[in-house]
């Protein structure tokens, strides 16, 4: 019985976190059927095979180009039925998570979001979830036959394993009543690496003294191919947009490397970064609490260290 994986696309490209969802489902030992909604390039669809999908359902209806949560939930529910899939796996996201929750209700499935590891099946079907904003984990048994699993970034490694996928056009009749929200416009940072998906994040705090000083941070980010983030005060003061705010009430990141510059490390900020593999803290205050949560630290002035660090990274390429 296949596992269905909902694959999100942005600007025609498959999201990296969706590739992780395919890898996750593949590692569960089942055949993976991926489903892509809306316009997408055939090459992009076929490429899902390399990550472990056997079959790719493509609903090419242009009505799906605008992601209406209710509509997507109905299509995925139908696809689970048609494919005979008892399990749906997708990546946590502003689209995927609510869609997953609705599918779970429609299919009477057990649901878990923020899942960080492959399920264990020795004592029931048990998933590990990140809770208390990264400060703890819970082990939760999904009791129903049907299961919907929304995985957190890094729950599985998206790796090319060299398979091929059959792309199958899939038609679903859409229900007008499901179009219950209308997106009238959207703004997206273009060309940037998405903060929640970034492998390296360079984040700045009040220590940078003002939005006009962000250029030196951005230079380092560019050199590292990193996304930029910021602390809550920085976003509250309007120095940086809210979607860059990393922390308890902002974006939670889980990169390989998190570099914090001029951020003291309030516990609310740490809650947003504690899933990072490696944390570097640069702060002129040697007593900044962030040093206690870091792997590497430099005590020094951001305006002195940042250009040196950028140059050192450049020299190491």
């Amino acid at each position: 019985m296949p596992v269905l994986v909902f694959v999100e696309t942005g600007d025609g490209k498959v999201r990296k976190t969706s590739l992780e969802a395919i890898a996750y489902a593949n590692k569960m030992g089942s055949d993976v059927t991926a489903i892509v909604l809306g316009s997408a390039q055939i090459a992009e669809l076929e490429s899902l095979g390399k990550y472990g999908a056997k079959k790719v359902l493509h609903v090419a209806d242009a009505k799906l180009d605008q992601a209406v949560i209710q509509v997507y939930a109905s299509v995925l529910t139908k696809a689970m039925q048609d494919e005979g899939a008892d399990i749906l796996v997708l990546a946590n996201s502003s689209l995927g998570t609510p869609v997953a929750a609705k599918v779970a209700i429609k299919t009477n499935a057990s649901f878990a979001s923020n899942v960080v590891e492959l399920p264990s099946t020795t004592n029931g079907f048990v998933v590990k979830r990140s809770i208390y904003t990264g400060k703890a984990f819970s082990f939760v048994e999904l009791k129903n036959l049907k299961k919907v699993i929304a995985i957190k970034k890094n729950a599985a490694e998206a790796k090319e394993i060299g398979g091929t996928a059959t792309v199958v056009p899939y038609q679903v009749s859409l229900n007008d009543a499901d179009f219950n929200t209308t997106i009238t416009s959207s703004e997206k940072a273009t060309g940037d690496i998405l903060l929640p998906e970034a492998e390296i994040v360079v984040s700045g705090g009040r220590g940078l003294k003002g939005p006009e000083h962000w250029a030196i941070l951005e230079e380092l980010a560019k050199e590292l191919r990193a996304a930029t983030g910021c602390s809550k005060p920085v976003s509250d003061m309007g120095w940086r947009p809210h979607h860059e705010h990393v922390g308890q009430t902002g974006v939670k990141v889980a990169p390989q490397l998190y570099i914090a510059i001029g951020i003291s490390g309030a516990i609310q900020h740490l809650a947003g970064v504690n899933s990072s593999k490696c944390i570097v803290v640069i702060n002129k205050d040697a007593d900044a609490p962030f040093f206690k949560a870091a792997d590497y630290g430099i005590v020094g002035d951001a305006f002195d260290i940042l250009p040196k660090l950028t140059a050192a990274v450049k020299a190491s390429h």
Partner: protein
Amino acid sequence: MKILVCISNVPDTTSKINFVDNSTKFDATGVQFIIGPYDDYALARAIELKEATPGTTVTVINVGGAETEPTIRKALAIGADDAIRVNAEPTDSFFVASQIAEHAKEYDLVLMGRESIDFNGGVVHAMVGEILGIPSLSPVMKLEIEGTKVKMEREIEGGKEQVEANLPLVAGCQEPIAEWKIPNMRGIMSARTKPLKVVDPTAVEQTVLLQKFQLPAAKGAIKMISADNVAELVTLLKTEAKVL
């Protein structure tokens, strides 16, 4: 208009998390409980709407034991008119959503935080909307009502989108939808006598079962690098941490 605000009773954001009873129970010793920070934004927006539109009422609902009543009273002190406490432990998203849906049918607008900061499920709004068959949206950063139309700004990865829907509607809220409100003395006094109805939970099929909790592995010691030798950091990130 009738607004229902769903609040969670959660440990203060500065709390140290511990578990007892063989890692099966949260250790509440010395922990300060608060209205979920995101729920607090939802409540603040509801109070703003109430102040702007005569005839609007705000009810708060919480799923929890008697120990959550100080948190509910705080919401009443902030300006909600009355409260419902569903007398049950909020075990999982589906259970909580089912309880809220049972009471939410008569409301025009159901607001709550984008997620609770204890279990971080982030789906109660979507589930309540699904159970009631009405639209739901999260995380909502702006919410304006024009007649029966709701205009919202929603955060998406790396940006935001403007979304419209009709009432009734469920919204999961986050900043900057409104500024948190701090109760004043008059609010605190009047909250004591505002109605707080305690109801029994509705029977819900148990779909998930919590087995145990776990704390993350302790972090190793920090390695300090001299400000005069920044290049060493790059070397260590490459060769030791292997993240570059």
